[in-house]
């Protein structure tokens, strides 16, 4: 190929132990990275290193392994801060996943700041994790929840956004990158307009952090969330970022150890941020693993990761319709505003059957609604199949996908 790629997926596969396994005699073509990513060896080693060699609790042990654990855990926080361009590691709250981060904001900031008849704006392309917490909050507070629609080409309808901004919402929230269609939203611009309308903005970065450079200060948003397990890290890791003054004004979410300053029977004072929001023993090993994952990604360079995936998605957008006659691909038609996600339907085969048959060829794709039922309602599909890419995805994987889909088509052809 003529395009120079700084990132060689086949070489990188050597870093991921799962490719040493055989599946029906073949190397796994893992095309479900939007659900969760595979893990490089360094991440497993970081987790195992903690569990084997210094498995102490953090923040309180006056002994060597306690100090080692605390240092490693706080180093992970600093790496996260740096990776997403936060000003200060104290703005990073460690959470289990993006879902918990959003719920934390809904319970803590939301229950304090959202009142009757206030409006929250989200979009029809959100993951359930960025819909349900706001539905629960709106119900509790008798507030309004409004949805920005999206167009045929899978992009948010910016006129519908402007109309909703005129209702003066208190909070606006949307995905940076849609897990349903791969749409890359114009985040900085949408944040600016929301701020002009007087709203705070929460950006769901679950599909952005793993796949493209992110800088929360440049985006200028107020809250930002992501999950470690989609970013080469272990499950159980993730972060909420928010501006320090916002975090400081937020009441606590969960109560318990670590988040307190002083507990008395009749009153309690709380710790400084971010500890105020980290009740109980955190998932130390997952955080350390995420730190190692972000180091790995930084070494690759997020520009290169994005360039690689853009090139892959452009290749897929070109070859799949050429070769797979009955495929309908949803979402943006160009790699310029599309992440490495191909969501599709075949004319005669249901996505579940597609996934089952692809599994027989050692190709892993997702089938279902991908936790985006409203998006699928809008697409007019009960379910779809989704192939999603990452650093270890190669052209060969896409070629294998195309060939297997042709076989599925043939099997299901209504002759």
């Amino acid at each position, binding site marked *: 190929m003529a395009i120079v790629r700084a990132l060689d997926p086949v070489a990188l596969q050597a870093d991921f132990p799962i490719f040493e396994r055989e599946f029906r005699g073949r190397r796994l073509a893992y095309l479900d990275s939007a659900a969760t990513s595979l893990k490089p060896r360094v991440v497993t080693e970081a987790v195992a290193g903690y569990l084997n060699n210094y498995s102490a609790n953090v923040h309180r042990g006056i002994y060597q392994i306690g100090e080692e654990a605390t240092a490693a855990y706080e180093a992970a926080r600093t790496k996260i801060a740096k990776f997403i361009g936060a000003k200060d590691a104290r703005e990073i709250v460690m959470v289990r996943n993006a879902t918990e981060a959003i719920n934390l904001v809904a319970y803590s900031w939301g229950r304090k700041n959202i009142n009757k008849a206030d409006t929250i704006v989200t979009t029809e392309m959100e993951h359930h994790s960025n819909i349900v917490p706001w539905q629960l909050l709106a119900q509790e507070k008798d507030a309004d929840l409004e949805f920005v629609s999206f167009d045929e080409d899978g992009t948010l309808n910016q006129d519908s956004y402007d109309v909703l901004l005129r209702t003066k919402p208190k909070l606006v929230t949307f995905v940076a990158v849609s897990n349903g269609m791969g749409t890359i939203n114009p985040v900085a611009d949408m944040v600016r307009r929301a701020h002009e309308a007087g709203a705070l903005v929460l950006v769901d970065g679950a599909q952005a952090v793993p796949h493209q450079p992110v800088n929360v200060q440049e985006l200028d948003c107020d809250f930002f969330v992501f999950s470690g397990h989609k970013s080469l890290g272990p499950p159980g890791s993730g972060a909420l970022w928010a501006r320090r003054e916002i975090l400081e004004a937020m009441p606590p979410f969960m109560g318990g150890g670590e988040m307190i300053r002083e507990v008395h029977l009749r009153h309690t004072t709380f710790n400084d941020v971010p500890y105020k929001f980290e009740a109980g023993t955190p998932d130390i090993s997952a955080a350390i693993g995420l730190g190692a994952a972000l180091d790995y990604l930084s070494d690759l360079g997020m520009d290169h990761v994005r360039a690689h995936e853009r090139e892959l998605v452009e290749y897929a957008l070109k070859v799949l319709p050429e070769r797979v006659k009955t495929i309908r691909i949803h979402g943006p038609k160009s790699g310029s505003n599309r992440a490495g996600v191909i969501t599709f339907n075949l004319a005669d085969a*249901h*996505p*579940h*059957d597609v996934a*089952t048959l692809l599994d027989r060829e050692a190709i892993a794709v997702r089938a*279902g*609604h991908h936790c985006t039922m409203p998006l699928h309602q809008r697409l007019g599909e009960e379910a779809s199949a989704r192939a999603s890419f990452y650093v270890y995805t190669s052209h060969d994987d896409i070629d294998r996908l195309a060939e297997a889909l042709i*076989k599925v088509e043939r099997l*299901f052809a*209504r002759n």
Partner: protein
Amino acid sequence: MDDLYRDEILEHYRNPHNFGTLDEPTLVKEGSNPLCGDRITLMLEINDDGTVKDVAFTGRGCAISQASASMLTDEIKGKSLTEIATTGRQDVLDNLGIEISPARMKCAMLSLETLKSAVSDRVAWQGKTDEE
């Protein structure tokens, strides 16, 4: 790949038996699979003697859920509700006659579970009228 879905499955999928609606159903029940969005609506017309006079279903789904609904509805025609109550998961799997992975089990069982809950509604409802 080709060996997984037997021709008979694909045949039922392409041309499901008993697909459609009934004019005078005795029982109507909807079922859905929360993980993947499959849905089915099942209609039964029951004779006075408690046997199934007619049955029909609608709904979109995958080959496995459609074929198992098609085969199951064939099978229950003429049977009594008591006989239906003894139909089990293994019967459905035997009908399909192919390997069903754990993730697809819900697809295979959707029609059976919808049928079972229709029948138990009916029994509960009958129990109630008896008491009243």
